[in-house]
């Protein structure tokens, strides 16, 4: 549903003409090919009058107009169909075809492009279902390293705008641009429009921007106008906008809470707005208090860069169901190495090891164990996974295995000497030597006997 946003804009070509800037209106700097054109019309109420649907400076119809545009500083930036967009960028022949990024014949859809979405493909959908909906889709195996690289590149560009960048995942982040107006000589809205333009030009993918006065609404806004969108929710219209939305829009209201609220007849945020905080708190505890605040568009969370990683994991879905320890162990070993490599590159270690298995009938089994010392070594991680895996190979057929590490600590706390395992130091040294060889000659240059021969050759780069 489109929100009743003040202002209008349509999706078409970007403004290309460079024109003078009228001092009273501070029109966007078209020489920077800012997109979309941002106009600040402080006293103009919504909706915009006819005849003003185009940029008065360049004539572009992509105009964003909002009474509070100059005052809003919290943004949520989300890349559009991130993995698929990168694949399309790298292989222009895919441009007009439905693209699905996901694992193999048996995997799930990780990301799909908007063409595929029109056909009903959704992320997290099993691949066979996605291919039923869209048989002519091009399925591409995810290339995590490449996506991480692009994600980093975009993150760098965000950090050039403000130090207050809070990444939520590889392709989205909150930005707090308060106080940067003088530095950029532009309002947050203009800075973001320029940023979106720059990402398109330099990285080759599109982003959607949500701008508001807090994180809750910024995140909602970025979703309103996807893809290649720029949506604004101001203080004035936030309550009326929220009133018509379902309660599930509120972060933290998942299936369970939604059912609970529905049981009390509450479906829309507007209903929450009419209740007072005390009643809500009494009825729903801590969640009630949060609901009361968020329903009125109040969210005091700050954009913080200190957000800490809580776990590191890797998982894989098999082409065919596997049941035996002999089949599962090499895969577990490889995943343990992958997780370990991530821990090492981030300079952290973990203390709780988790094994995840998905059975043929999609039931998930997780088994975890806390180590006596944190570690970042693939060897220790795998030893534990191995011990957890053995009792689960009871004939059940599995379609997925995952290895995870949580309770993260700094690297210096990981792998202290072990008096009960005199060989530990030697194995750690051997692993270090393996890492060094791999660094130089590639991942497959040296393998443990368990994995040897089972690793597929590195994929040739696409495009």
């Amino acid at each position, binding site marked *: 549903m489109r929100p009743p946003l003040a202002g209008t804009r349509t999706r078409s070509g970007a403004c290309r003409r460079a024109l003078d800037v009228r001092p009273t209106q501070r029109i966007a700097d078209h020489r920077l090919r800012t997109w979309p054109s941002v106009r600040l019309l402080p006293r103009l109420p919504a909706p915009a009058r006819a005849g003003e649907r185009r940029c008065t400076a360049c004539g572009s119809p992509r105009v964003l107009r909002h009474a509070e545009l100059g005052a809003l500083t919290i943004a949520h930036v989300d890349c559009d169909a991130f993995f698929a967009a990168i694949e399309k960028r790298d292989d222009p022949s895919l441009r007009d075809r439905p693209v699905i990024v996901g694992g193999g014949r048996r995997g799930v859809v990780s990301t799909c492009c908007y063409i595929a979405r029109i056909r009903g493909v959704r992320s997290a959908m099993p691949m066979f279902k996605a291919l039923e909906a869209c048989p002519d889709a091009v399925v591409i195996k995810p290339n995590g390293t490449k996506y991480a690289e692009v994600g980093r590149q975009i993150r760098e560009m965000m950090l050039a705008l403000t130090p207050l960048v809070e990444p939520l995942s590889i392709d989205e982040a909150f930005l707090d641009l308060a106080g940067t107006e003088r530095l950029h000589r532009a309002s947050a809205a203009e800075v973001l429009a320029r940023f979106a333009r720059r990402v398109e030009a330099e990285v080759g993918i599109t982003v959607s921007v949500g701008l508001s006065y807090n994180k809750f609404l910024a995140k909602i806004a970025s979703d309103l106008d996807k893809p290649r969108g720029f949506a604004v929710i101001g203080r004035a219209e936030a309550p009326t906008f929220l009133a018509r939305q379902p309660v599930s829009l509120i972060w933290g209201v998942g299936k369970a809470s939604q059912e609970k609220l529905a049981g009390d007849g509450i479906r829309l945020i507007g209903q929450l707005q009419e209740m007072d905080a005390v009643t809500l708190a009494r009825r729903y505890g801590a969640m009630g208090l949060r609901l009361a605040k968020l329903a009125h568009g109040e969210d005091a969370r700050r954009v913080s860069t200190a957000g800490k990683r809580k776990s590191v994991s890797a998982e894989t879905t098999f082409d065919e169901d596997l049941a035996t320890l002999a089949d599962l162990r090499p895969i577990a070993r490889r995943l343990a190495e992958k997780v370990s490599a991530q821990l090492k590159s981030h300079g952290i270690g973990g203390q709780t090891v988790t094994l995840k298995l998905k059975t043929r009938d999609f039931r998930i089994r997780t088994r975890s*164990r806390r180590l*006596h010392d944190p570690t970042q070594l693939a060897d220790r991680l795998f030893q534990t996974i191995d011990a957890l895996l053995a009792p689960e190979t009871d004939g059940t057929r599995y379609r997925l295995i995952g290895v995870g590490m949580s309770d993260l600590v700094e690297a210096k706390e990981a792998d202290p000497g072990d*008096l*009960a395992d005199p060989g530990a130091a030697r194995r750690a040294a051997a692993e270090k030597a393996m890492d060094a060889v791999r660094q130089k000659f590639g991942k497959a240059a040296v393998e443990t006997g368990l994995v040897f021969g089972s690793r597929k050759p590195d994929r040739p780069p696409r495009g």
Partner: protein
Amino acid sequence: MRVTLERTHLLKSLTHVHRVVERRNTIPILSNVLLRASGGDLQLKATDLDIDALETVAAVVEAPGATTVPAHMFYDIVRKLPDGAQVSLETTADGSALTIVSGRSRFSLQMLPETDFPDISAGELSHRFKMPAKDLRKLIDRTQFAISTEEIRYYLNGIYFHTVDTAEGPKFRAVATDGHRLAQTDIAAPEGSKGMPGIIVPRKTVGEIQKLLEEPEEEVLVELSDAKIRLSVGAVVLTSKLIDGTFPDYGRVIPQGNDKELRVEKADFAEAVDRVSTISSERGRAVKLTLTEGKMVLTVVNPDSGSATEEVHVDYDSDPLDIGFNARYLLDITSQLGSDMAIFRLADPGSPTLIQDAGDTDTLYVLMPMRV
């Protein structure tokens, strides 16, 4: 079954055996204590399928027989009876309940049949020897704190008892480690222990044995095989399964060439460690020791709350050294030292450190440093 005995005797025996019974049990019979009256004795027996405690107490047996009743409840009843009272236990004619009568108190406890009670104590025991209770007590006291609680390496969840040949003759040795610290202590090998298999006695059994060793001068009869151990102390017989695993080759981690020697007054050191570690967080318990000639500075830095330092006079004349240890582990070890002086033998900040008691050359501790 009908039997009468003194409350004090019954309570003492029950105290020993009821501890073996787990508070929560899925198998009902394991919550019970077995009572068997015959001749002039009442036998009490409890088990958790790993340990089996049997105690015999003198009683007036009017009708021999056997039954089982809930152990903890029976213990609580006897505990609350007045001191010096006589207790009579009688099974009802239909075999459904045990009647406990003492003075004007009368209890009726539901029973489970004696035939359901599991027996783990059977089996051949290959070695048999005696040792004074105080020796066994020392072996346990000095090493127990280092027993690991880690599930993965289950073979560390106990004390490893075995015999070794040293320059001073054959020794009976106890070792425990959790990977961070290791404790080892020796006594002269008792006659008959030669050739015994190395055994790992589980933590719970260690605790039970320790509680039975009340009289230092008592003799303990030890019987063992590679799967079970049985100890007889006075009227109590404790039988336990052993941990089926291989204890690591601990000899390789005991440092031999640590050349930096540090001597410090145990009490001064322990108090200083205790004081500075007040600052430390739950997670990082590291205390840094900065050693220079004649002086040790203890430092704890907790980024969330602050820092603490304390200076202690020591006997040290090697090269200056900075090394970190877990404060709790240092305190665990110093609390085991019998004499006033602790001797540290150090190599470098990353290598295991040897700690000894100046007055006890039979015991040594190894502590892994922490990075600080």
